[in-house]
């Protein structure tokens, strides 16, 4: 590193970095990537490989059938039903859920709020409750014959509601379980972002005579936009893979008419009930691409909003 050539070479700031130093950042992140390769990328590629075969788990021979599984998938009514159900549940749970999280976060963003820590911990409790327990409790609350809602209906002489019998009701209850679970979590994330907004912005808004609503939409929301995008993406990835709730609320088939059948439930059913690992892998790969596509769309929209 001499200046003999006359060109200005940037001096390394700090101490000299040797060969080991050049590689040390990669060494620091290597453990994660090695684990990811073993438990993430490896199985992913294997799933893709299995999807090209007719793979019955107990058989020793697995004939290669190319893209037949995918062709069958696109003409399978169950696949489209599962796709529709998954999107319905996703929209029903994500949109109200995130709006509710925003409202709760802004309510907690009040500096004169008492026992702040208690409120914040309370928000997390739904998130840490075991999923199976939550689903069982919701199933009994929304039971047709016995349960609090059935009891209330009976007291008022109203007809029974079969939440499991109607597709929209089933999906609504599942969406409700998802909202219940994740609203607090997302609210905490939004709250953290809101607390990072500089107070000077609020002061200048106050001086300009902005109302609470205008402050919220013109100051708070734009400042936490990256966080909102993060929450939307994580909610998307999670919401498109809902599994335990429909499994326990309905049954492994997704109900009498597949009303609770989500993509992941279909993968599970095809693999472990119908013993068709190849077909299930094909559906799983399709799900991967759908999730990637939606995440990509989210990203593009965010770029457009930012540049607008």
């Amino acid at each position, binding site marked *: 590193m001499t200046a003999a050539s006359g060109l200005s070479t940037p001096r390394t700031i700090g101490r000299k970095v040797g060969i080991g130093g050049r590689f040390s950042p990669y060494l620091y992140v290597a453990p994660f990537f090695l684990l990811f390769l073993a438990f993430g990328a490896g199985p992913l590629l294997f799933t893709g490989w299995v999807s090209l075969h007719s793979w019955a788990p107990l058989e020793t021979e697995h004939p290669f059938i190319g893209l037949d599984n995918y062709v069958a998938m696109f003409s399978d009514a169950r696949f489209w039903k599962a796709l529709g159900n998954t999107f319905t549940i996703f929209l029903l749970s994500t949109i109200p859920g995130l709006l509710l999280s925003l409202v709760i976060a802004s309510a907690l963003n009040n500096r004169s709020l008492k026992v702040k820590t208690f409120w914040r911990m309370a928000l997390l409790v739904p998130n840490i409750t075991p999923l199976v327990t939550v689903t069982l409790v919701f199933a009994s609350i929304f039971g047709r014959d016995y349960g609090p809602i059935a009891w209330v209906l009976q007291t008022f002489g109203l007809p029974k509601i079969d939440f499991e019998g109607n597709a929209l009701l089933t999906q609504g209850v599942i969406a409700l379980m998802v909202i219940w679970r994740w609203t607090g979590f997302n609210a905490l994330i939004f709250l953290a972002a809101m607390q990072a907004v500089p107070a000077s912005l609020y002061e200048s808004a106050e001086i300009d005579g902005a109302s609470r609503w205008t402050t919220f939409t013109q100051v708070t929301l734009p400042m936490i936009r990256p966080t909102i995008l993060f929450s939307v993406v994580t909610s998307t990835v999670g919401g498109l893979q809902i599994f335990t709730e429909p499994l326990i609320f309905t049954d492994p088939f997704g109900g009498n008419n597949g009303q609770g059948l989500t993509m992941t439930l279909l993968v599970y059913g095809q693999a472990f009930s*119908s013993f068709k690992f190849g077909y299930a892998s094909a559906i799983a790969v399709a799900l991967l691409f759908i999730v990637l596509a939606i995440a990509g769309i989210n990203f593009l929209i965010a770029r457009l909003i930012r540049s607008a």
Partner: protein
Amino acid sequence: MKAPKKAVLLAIAALSIPVLAGCTPGTASPSDEKITLNVWGFAALSEPLVEQYEAENPNITIDVKISDYDASHQALLTALAAGQGPDIGQIAIDYMGEFVATPAAFTDLRPFGAEDIEGDYLDWRWAGGVADDGSVVGIPTDVGGMAIAYRTDLFEQAGLPTDPAEVSALWPTWDDYIATGAEYVAATGGTFVDSGKSVFRAVSNQGDLKYVDADGEPIFETNPVIRDAWDYGVAAIDAGLSANVGTFSAEWNAALASGAIATLPAPAWMLGYMQGQAPDTEGLWNIATLPGTAGNDGGSFLTIPKAAKHAQEAYDFITWLEAPEQQLALFQENNTFPSTPVLYEDPDVLSLTNPFFQDAPVGQIYVESVKAVDGHPVGPKDRIIEGQFQNGLGRVDGGQQSGEDSWKQTIEDANRELGN
């Protein structure tokens, strides 16, 4: 140098005798190795019998892992697919069709002498454990038999007879059963049976063919037994008999206790379940024969996966556990009905009564029902097809579709499951 060499030779000879003796196959003392047999199942093994076996064979410990019905089969499937598995796997009759289709995943029990005990078991039940290539995959445990458990107090309220013989005479055929049910509904306004599916299941198991024929070809679309079973299920629903609760669901348990279920097609193993779920209804139930008498629902097999470490000991245990003497003890303990016909003449079995059910002669009733069964061929996709029919009747029960529309959709769904 000769003397030391001789001494060395003698020493070697002296040492090698016990070593050689130990190496001779078959002479190793059975109480040398400590063996743990891993059992995976969905129904608890009888504690007294397990303890008895462990006492008689002190070197063997039996480690039982019980999971939920579906979960235990999936765990077994994943283990077998990975080339692993327990020493003994319990597989329910509904799942057995798909497991027995790949006998390579299991240890063939014929070399251990399975063919010698074949005659001890019901032939149609034994056949379910034999693969196409002739290898014996599993030893049968119990069979279900089938009868109708009914509430004497509710029958009294409806003006129906309560004596078991008279009640059995009410319904020699399923048409009579539905007619009786309609009478009950008219008299009390309550529901008569738990679901249309329940009626379907009982009727569909009565023929000598079910979803597949002897060659494994699917015949559910044209088999009159299935069509009749469907029609009876729909008739029960249309006549208002059905409480529309899924078997073993939380609502079913509640309905049992609350009296929304006046009659229940019940295999022998369900009696213990009812006692557990609705203990307050003790003394209010009795048992009558099924319309058509013959019937069976349930049962399982004990299999030995290929990867089992102690196949011989596992075989010894399962054949001991399912031998007639032990099956008798099981029957007396919790009404698990034996699959060994020699017991059907046994006075201990024939005289067994159940106090929870007003001392109903459960032994006699279930023996009659099992003896009348011919058994039917089971195919690998039977469970999936059954699931479609159950969904179909569930749709009718829930008022989502008419009987005819649901039948068409069911056949479509079943064919699609088979085809793909």
